[in-house]
């Protein structure tokens, strides 16, 4: 049975390979960075199991590993990695044509097939895919199949998979790590009472008897907290428990289903504004080799701002009516 854990091992293997290539080129910071990350990803289940069994040491070591990554990341300069000559790529592109699309499309296609039909894939009474996070397992499988197909289509050596993957990984550098680090910060903030303090702050600032003021405070609070946390999922329980439930639902009689849906979506507008939402706003900057860290945010914030106003209006018009 294929599990999400196998995907994590595969990531660890790839990261360790990238570390090894960097080690051979004496790029010590990169090598150390990917190696530590490989250990954290590969050993993740062990850490979580140990924590569940009340052994704090593995988790503490993992925490020390995260700090090591934080120390190494400013030392990761975006070095010039040799890419194949542009004219050779152009010649290959003309020769191979649409065959190049095949493996690239296999990644979404196989993921889609596993997501839709993975539950029915049973061999000898055993399910082929573990239902836990099956789509992500499918994505990992799709990547392996696509790599094999890509090597076959381009007649490249298997070692090219690691070399080219590492080229892109080093292009990403520390940006690859930021989503994880921010998610970890969300966990720390939740456990240290940051959320409760923020919602108290919001309540202190508004006239609670005005329904409009409460709607605006809830919506803008969702945006503000999402901007700080980089994630509307982290903001939702905090703001809804602090402002939504006591003021809008209990005091002003709002419809909880509409409030929940629109509240979350208002938070998503905040996700469009913040560098803290690294996987959406910073990783693509590195992937697309853009010069400024805020280039993607600059391209999307106006859509988010207009949508925010629309959302607040929808909320005010709908939640008290249904």
């Amino acid at each position, binding site marked *: 049975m294929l599990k999400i854990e196998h995907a994590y091992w595969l*990531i660890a293997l790839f990261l360790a390979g990238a570390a090894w290539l960097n080690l051979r080129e004496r790029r010590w910071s990169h090598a150390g960075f990917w190696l530590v990350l490989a250990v954290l990803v590969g050993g993740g289940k062990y850490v979580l199991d140990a924590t569940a069994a009340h052994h704090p040491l593995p988790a503490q070591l993992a925490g020390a590993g995260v700090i090591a990554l934080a120390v190494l990341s400013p030392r990761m300069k975006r070095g010039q990695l040799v890419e194949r000559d542009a004219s050779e790529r152009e010649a290959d592109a003309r020769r191979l044509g649409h065959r190049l699309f095949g493996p690239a499309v296999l990644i979404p296609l196989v993921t889609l097939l596993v997501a839709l039909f993975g539950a029915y894939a049973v061999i000898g009474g055993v399910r082929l895919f573990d239902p836990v996070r099956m789509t992500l397992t499918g994505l990992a499988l799709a990547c392996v199949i696509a790599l094999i197909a890509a090597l076959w289509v381009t007649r490249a050596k298997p070692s090219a998979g690691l070399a080219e993957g590492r080229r892109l990984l080093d292009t990403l550098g520390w940006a690859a790590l*930021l989503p*994880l680090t921010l998610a*970890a910060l969300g966990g720390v903030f939740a456990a240290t009472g940051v959320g409760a303090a923020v919602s108290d702050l919001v309540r202190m600032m508004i006239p609670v008897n005005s329904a409009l003021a409460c709607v605006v405070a809830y919506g803008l609070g969702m945006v503000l907290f999402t901007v700080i946390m980089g994630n*509307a999922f982290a903001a939702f329980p905090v703001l809804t428990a602090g402002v939504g439930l006591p003021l809008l639902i209990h005091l002003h009689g709002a419809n909880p289903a509409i409030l929940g849906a629109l509240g979350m979506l208002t938070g998503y507008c905040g996700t469009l504004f913040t560098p803290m939402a690294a996987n959406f706003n910073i990783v693509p900057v590195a992937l*697309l080799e853009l010069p400024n860290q805020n280039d993607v945010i600059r391209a999307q914030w106006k859509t988010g701002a207009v949508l925010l106003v*629309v959302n607040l209006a929808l909320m005010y018009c709908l939640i008290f009516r249904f």
Partner: protein
Amino acid sequence: MTALLHWLPLLGVLVVVVGFALRFNPVPVVVLAGIVSGLAAGKSIGDILALIGNSFVSERALLLFVLTLPAIGVLERAGLREHARNWISALRGMTLSRLLIAYLGLRQILSMLGLTNVAGQAQTVRPLLAPMAEAAAEQRGKPLDERERNDVRAFSAATDNIGLFFGEDVFIALGAVLLIQGFYSQHGIELEPLQIALWALPTAIAAFVIHAIRTVLFARRMAGRSGTTVPALRSGDGENSERC
């Protein structure tokens, strides 16, 4: 004294805001913020380390996208981006706005079906959408300069984000809707997932309309770029200098 302790963990937020404002490397800033708010809440170093370590490894699924890199890298080495570009340049009817709006709609529909990981910045934007958008932008005019090329790339990435965010919430079986339902259920309010998901539809439609309009304006700006060598394609192109 107890009142002060209640507010003290907000210092972690302050670290993040100041660190990002001063453009320090975000990774150490974020880790430092975690340590600061842990210390401010009176936790021991051991507890803070364990908290950071556990939170970090439980989110390791966020790293899955790196598995796309070897396949994409091998294809790029053999000219995938060049081919995507050449192909779109050869398609006469494919304008920048049509390409991006079609992608936006497709991404929203896929997300509504729960297929959020099918596309993405690493999976589809870098290898396919961005080069295609560049080619579509160049189709009606002179080659893009460095700044314009970056604008087109950034707009492609933004389109992917917006399609994902404002489709996902309509899907009932995972993610946002279940989080909302679970939250209310903890607080004694029982809701059906479908009740919640349906109310995300108006915003999904609004997001599509707003971003589609912005895409058209952006595409016009790209088509009416400063170059005087480009003949006016449509009346009004020159006047519209809306900066998106």
